[in-house]
């Protein structure tokens, strides 16, 4: 039984079928096939709900690279089931929506291939138990998201948005991979379950905190937490179904999933608590603060998504307080935070998906989504208006919508945490204050969303098409989501008992053994602190909304050039400019410069080594004697070599060069190497002829216009290289460790049947060298021939021209 693994593979298989089917069956919209796939997966996963709710978990393994402990292992528990249901359920709804949204002129097979890739990758992320496999799927979501954002690749802004999101999420992904490797080093296992089970044995390890920070970096970049949130608003260049699916309901929650999944590992650390809570709360505030200034509806929703993700993130952070001191009756109260986080996670997916679809409808029907051009659509688009009301009121946290319940729980959690003074008091009292202020701002932008779009005056002259209600096919998905928003408010405990309760035991495995962590959600919970806070939010929010144009001026204090986007852009530009400058600085294109680098490195490395290891030993004892003839020849050769440098004409240089060649030949004679002397004489003669031929064809030497400074650099380098070679040779020459093996070759007559030892070595003992040397000569000959004979024909010459 590998059914869960199969559920991950099916979308990938279907993705390969999409282009084929699209080509074969052109009458039916290919989206329906995708809808069937995702709906079937949803139905398949729904069947597991009762068994998961009763505490069962499912583990399947498919061997992949067993020798590296990398196996395609899936683990289904409450937590992964929630995400999987969101992925497939909203996936199915988004597919229906996209069928009506995208016109058939679009490149549909690309769109649905990418979408299915994404769906499979996302299912892989939430079901994978093996950290490496989790990482593989994680990057696949980044890649498919990249492809989907740049779906209209002819637009510059789409490409920029795709590039930015890829750079940021992949940077985080790599950080997460490093964190995973660290975890593997510490725990010795790739399995997340086993990592959780053995956490107590290595939580003191020095890599523990770095691993945590790196994994959190992955989670924060993916879930658009501050300051990595900047990719999400630019990713709004994607088609609206993509924004609704990836950038509100599923992919941006992958980071949240990672945090929830690793809470049992790292949750016991205060660093985790403060990082997750702090970053989450600040993102919550920053997102809601920035959402108000947006004039583009999708940008507004993007910032609101950032803000809501921050809220969920901070709740998961607060819930880790339950693990800090281990299990006790008091600490169970903090597990509510995780429950609230999961609850809001589901709620957010429902209402944010609906809202994005509403914006898509407005954009699709009117040709614009600029708030300043919209207004008065309520009577013209009643159904869209109703869904917008439901979605944004739920987002603002108003009854009777599900956002109200999760916001109440959020306030309750924030109040609880502030009363629990395990850290400095000022910081923990700040938590509910920030949460409250951010909720007021949330309320304001929700009102902006509804009232500026649908109420006010209808301005037909600013629209591209006159307003009218969207087709029912397009309205179907947001209607379902809107209905869910209301249903969850009235029956929250169905969701709580069947889905959230089993997920709680995944997040707090140690506490769940002792306590039932399910929370009974009641819409009316008495006139307590959270309710007072909500009333405050509504009153102040209305006040701020009415007085919006009086205080909107404060946004001028944060001009565009001070934003993180500008910072990101500058960093990219600087990186490119700096690396260009650096490369241009040393890659000059002068051959001489590269020679200087090479020899300078040689001098530093070999010369430095000689000095450091103090191997500058000479010993001329045991040297053969020098006869006067040999001394004279050596002297002549040295003079000849140095004179070449000063030669004014080429002929002098060539002749001096052959003096050297014949000098070497004489040395070969003196040193009892007859074959060498013979060869050297012949080769030198032929070489001289060749040089003279070249002399005939090459232009006359001009005086080299080298600057004095580089001339002396040349001189120093060449002298140093010569000295180092000499010193190394002298040091080596006297340090013989063992006898030469050459006495063996004196058997050449017995073994090879020849008396000339050198020739038997060349032709018998080491004939392989000789064979390849012949090949070298052959190739050189062919090269010479082609250089002289082959010439580009006239018509070929134009190929290289620009």
């Amino acid at each position, binding site marked *: 039984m590998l059914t869960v693994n199969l559920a991950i593979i099916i979308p990938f298989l279907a993705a390969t079928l999409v282009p084929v089917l699209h080509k074969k069956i052109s009458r039916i919209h290919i989206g329906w096939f995708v809808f069937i796939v995702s709906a079937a997966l949803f139905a398949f996963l729904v069947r597991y709900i009762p068994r998961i709710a009763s505490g069962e978990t499912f583990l399947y393994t498919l061997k992949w690279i067993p020798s590296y402990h990398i196996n395609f292992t899936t683990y289904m528990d409450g937590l992964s089931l929630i995400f999987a249901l969101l992925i497939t359920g909203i996936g199915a709804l988004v597919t229906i929506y996209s069928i009506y949204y995208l016109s058939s002129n679009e490149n549909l097979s690309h769109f649905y291939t990418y979408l299915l890739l994404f769906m499979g990758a996302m299912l892989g992320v939430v079901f994978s138990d093996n950290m490496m496999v989790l990482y593989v799927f994680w990057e696949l979501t980044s890649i498919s998201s990249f492809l989907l954002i740049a779906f209209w690749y002819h637009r510059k802004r789409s490409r920029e948005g795709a590039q930015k999101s890829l750079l940021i999420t992949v940077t985080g992904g790599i950080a997460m991979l490093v964190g995973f490797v660290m975890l593997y080093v510490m725990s010795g296992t790739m399995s997340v379950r086993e990592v959780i089970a053995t956490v107590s044995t290595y939580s003191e390890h020095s890599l523990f905190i770095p691993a945590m920070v790196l994994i959190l970096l992955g989670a924060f970049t993916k879930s658009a937490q501050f300051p990595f949130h900047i990719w999400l608003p630019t990713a709004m260049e994607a088609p609206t179904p993509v924004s609704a699916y990836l950038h509100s309901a599923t992919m941006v929650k992958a980071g949240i999933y990672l945090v929830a999944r690793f809470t049992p590992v790292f949750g016991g650390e205060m660093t985790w608590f403060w990082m997750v809570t702090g970053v989450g709360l600040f993102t919550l505030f920053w997102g809601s603060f920035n959402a108000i200034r947006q004039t583009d509806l999708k940008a507004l929703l993007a910032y609101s998504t950032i803000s809501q993700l921050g809220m969920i993130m901070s709740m998961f952070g607060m819930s880790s307080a339950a693990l800090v001191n281990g299990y006790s009756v008091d600490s169970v109260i903090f597990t509510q935070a995780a429950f609230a986080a999961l609850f809001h996670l589901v709620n957010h997916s429902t209402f944010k998906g609906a809202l994005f679809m509403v914006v898509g409808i407005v954009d699709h029907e009117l040709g614009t989504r600029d708030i300043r051009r919209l207004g008065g659509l309520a009577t013209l688009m009643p159904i869209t208006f109703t869904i917008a009301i439901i979605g944004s009121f739920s987002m603002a946290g108003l009854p009777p919508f599900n956002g109200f319940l999760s916001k109440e729980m959020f306030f309750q959690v924030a109040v609880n945490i502030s009363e629990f003074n395990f850290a400095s008091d000022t910081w923990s009292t700040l938590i509910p204050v920030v949460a409250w202020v951010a909720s007021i701002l949330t309320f304001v932008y929700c009102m902006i969303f509804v009232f500026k779009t649908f109420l006010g005056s209808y301005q037909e002259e600013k629209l591209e098409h006159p307003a009218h209600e969207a087709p029912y096919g397009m309205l179907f998905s947001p209607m379902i989501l809107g209905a869910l928003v209301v249903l969850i408010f009235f029956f929250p405990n169905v969701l709580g008992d069947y889905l959230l309760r089993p997920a709680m035991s995944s997040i707090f495995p140690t506490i769940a053994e002792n306590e039932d962590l399910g929370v009974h959600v009641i819409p009316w919970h008495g006139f307590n602190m959270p309710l007072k806070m909500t009333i405050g939010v509504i009153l102040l929010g209305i006040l701020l909304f009415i007085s919006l144009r009086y205080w909107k001026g404060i946004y001028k204090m944060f001009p565009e050039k001070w934003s993180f986007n500008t910072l990101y852009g500058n960093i990219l530009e600087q990186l490119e400019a700096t690396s260009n400058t650096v490369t241009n600085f040393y890659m000059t*294109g*002068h051959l*001489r410069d590269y*020679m*200087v680098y090479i020899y300078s490195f040689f001098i530093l490395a070999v010369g430095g080594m000689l000095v450091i290891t103090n191997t500058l030993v000479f010993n001329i004892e045991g*040297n*053969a004697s020098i006869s006067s003839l*040999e001394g004279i020849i*050596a002297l002549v050769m040295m003079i000849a*070599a*140095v004179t*070449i*440098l000063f030669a004014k004409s080429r002929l002098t240089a060539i002749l001096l*060069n052959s003096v*050297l*060649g014949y000098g070497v030949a004489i*040395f070969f004679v003196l*040193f*009892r*190497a007859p074959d*060498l002397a013979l*060869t*050297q004489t012949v080769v030198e003669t032929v070489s001289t002829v060749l*040089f003279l*031929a*070249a002399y005939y*064809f*090459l*232009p006359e*030497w001009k005086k080299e216009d*080298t600057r004095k400074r580089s001339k002396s650099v*040349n*001189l120093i*380098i*060449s002298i140093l*290289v*010569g000295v180092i070679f*000499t010193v190394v*040779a002298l040091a080596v*020459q006297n340090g013989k460790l063992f006898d*030469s*093996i*050459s006495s063996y*070759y*004196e058997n*050449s*007559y017995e073994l090879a049947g020849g*008396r*000339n*030892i*050198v020739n038997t*070595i*060349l032709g018998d003992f080491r004939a392989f060298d000789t064979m390849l040397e012949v090949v*070298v*000569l052959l190739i*050189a000959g062919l*090269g*010479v021939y082609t*250089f*002289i004979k082959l010439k580009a024909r006239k018509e070929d010459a134009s190929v290289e021209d620009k």
Partner: protein
Amino acid sequence: MEFLVIILSGVLFATAIYNLLQKQLLRIIIGTVLLSHGAHLMILTMGKLKRGQPPVLTEGVTQYTDPLPQALILTSIVISFGITSLILVLAYRTTQENKTDNMEQLRGNSNE
């Protein structure tokens, strides 16, 4: 003797490098030739000089010069000859095509 030959090849190396750092093709090629002369002498010296008779089996001789470096040098001479002739022709062809044998002028565009 070894000392003297090593000094000689050191001088050959130094002059060879100086030639390689020049701009005209012919000088650079002469540099490579000097470099191979230096290397050959050095290989020979490493096998000790003048320790016996030429390495051809002869009645009554027991002491031979080390034959192995000689075989290596023989191979090397042939290879460096092949290379030298190839780059000479290359220089010839380059000069013909580009009307110059100066490395500075053969460099191409600065902003490539």
